[in-house]
């Protein structure tokens, strides 16, 4: 219905995302971590837990809970410096991020505990909440959390009725009819765990955009999986470096 080709300002095809990269295990201090970049939006995610939950009244004796913290660093937005710390926007996005990830995560082995997911941005150019969810899903898997699948997220939408995937900052301010619909998907079931929209549009276009997004999100899932697999090399590594470093110390010690 709306597969007609449009010209996007950066030359992408309608279903083409910006360049994506991801790496798992980037924060050794955390139980799990990842960095996920799409275009000029970069999300770091660190997972701590399961750990004891304070305050105690928030504990759930049936299961551990997931708690997400979304935060933009002061220099990560367009324009002037952002005020550091939580605000209404970041609190809302923290909540929808948590709801996007909770359906895949199983923390029943860890009653009364919490898994904290901290998501920080060093740069953003639209799609930050989706990048944050992608990074968080990799970090949760990296932390060894029991989860039935990863969660992949991307903004879909339409520009004057043509469905496009992964809108960037310029397209969000498209001069015409535009809808920006961030979605998160459980890849194995196709279920939608995040859905928001701003813009004016028709119901059919919303459904069309979600369906197309669900098909195209495969490329993102693949990047997430590959990031996790890449952490585990197929050969024993690091032995020679360790030996060289230690030999230096031992020989100096004897002098």
């Amino acid at each position, binding site marked *: 219905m709306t597969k007609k080709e449009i010209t996007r300002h950066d030359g992408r095809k309608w279903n083409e995302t910006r360049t994506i990269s991801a790496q798992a295990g*980037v*924060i050794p*201090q955390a139980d799990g971590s990842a960095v996920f970049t799409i275009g000029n939006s970069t999300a770091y995610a660190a997972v701590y837990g399961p750990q004891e939950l304070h305050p105690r009244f928030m504990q759930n004796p049936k299961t551990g809970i997931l708690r997400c*913290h979304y935060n933009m660093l002061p*220099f*990560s937005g*367009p*324009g*002037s410096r952002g005020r*550091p710390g939580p605000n209404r926007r970041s609190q809302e996005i923290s909540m929808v991020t948590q709801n996007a990830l909770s359906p895949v995560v199983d923390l029943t082995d860890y009653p009364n505990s919490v898994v904290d997911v901290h998501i920080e941005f060093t740069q953003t150019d639209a799609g930050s909440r989706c990048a944050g969810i992608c990074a968080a899903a990799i970090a949760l898997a990296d932390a060894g959390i029991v989860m039935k699948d990863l969660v992949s997220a991307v903004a879909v939408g339409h520009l004057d009725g043509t469905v496009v995937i992964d809108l960037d900052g310029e397209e969000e301010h498209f001069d015409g009819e535009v809808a920006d619909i961030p979605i998160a998907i459980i890849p194995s079931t196709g279920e939608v765990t995040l859905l928001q929209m701003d813009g004016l549009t028709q119901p059919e276009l919303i459904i069309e955009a979600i369906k197309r997004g669900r098909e195209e999100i495969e490329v993102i899932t693949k990047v997430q999986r590959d990031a996790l697999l890449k952490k585990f090399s197929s050969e024993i590594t690091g032995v020679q470096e360790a030996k060289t470093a230690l030999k230096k110390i031992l020989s100096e010690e004897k002098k």
Partner: protein
Amino acid sequence: MSQETLKTHLEEAFAKNIRTDGRKLLEFRNITIDRGVSSTAHGSARVRAGNAEIIAGVKIDVGTPYPDTPDEGALMVNAEFLAMSHRKHEGGRPGIDSIETARVIDRTIRESKSIDVKKLCLIPGEKILMVSVDIVPIAYDGNMIDLGTIAAMAALQDARIPTVHEDGSVDYENLTENPVPLSHLPIAVTVFKYDDMLVVDPTEVEERYYDARLTVGTLDDGTPCALQKGGSASFTVEEIEEIISLAQKKGDELRGLLK
């Protein structure tokens, strides 16, 4: 007889000039610097040292000058120990560690007079440029003041001033070719005291056990521009003398990384 603890055990190794990661007491970790790591910042840098990773980002805005300095631009340094970077850091308002780190880095850069604040004045008494540096650990592994100062200086070197229109409005998207005017490369070196031994660049684990520390900010020619004593133990005057000369020497090594 006093019982052996993790601290006394660590100090026994220090007495033999050995640290758990194989370094000597007065040896920094290998430091790498990447610039231009954030497209939204007007200048940015990432510093890595062992398991530590720190990012600094600069934003330059137009503002009004302080009444007592009508013809001077403003510098603001902020640091926040992100909960992401280590289990021991909690979210929420910046704690005293974040505040001290920011203030000591701020003092080192400000008092070096490296930034000619007069050059950041657009219209005296009305419009000035405000340079803000935000420093955050992505992965925390000790020695935040020294590593944060390097990150801040590298980000300032990387910064370009945005276009300011006649009416004073700022075009953040279009940066000029103009850098932030820097006449020195101030460097902070913090020397940590354990019992009577001096150590630089501690990891997070080593940092748990120090008795006292002294940060010395220096200019390119070694002139001290900032001091900060931390920790509950004390220093003798002789120790202070030794630390300043050590900070000058180490400061030179670190400054080389920024050139």
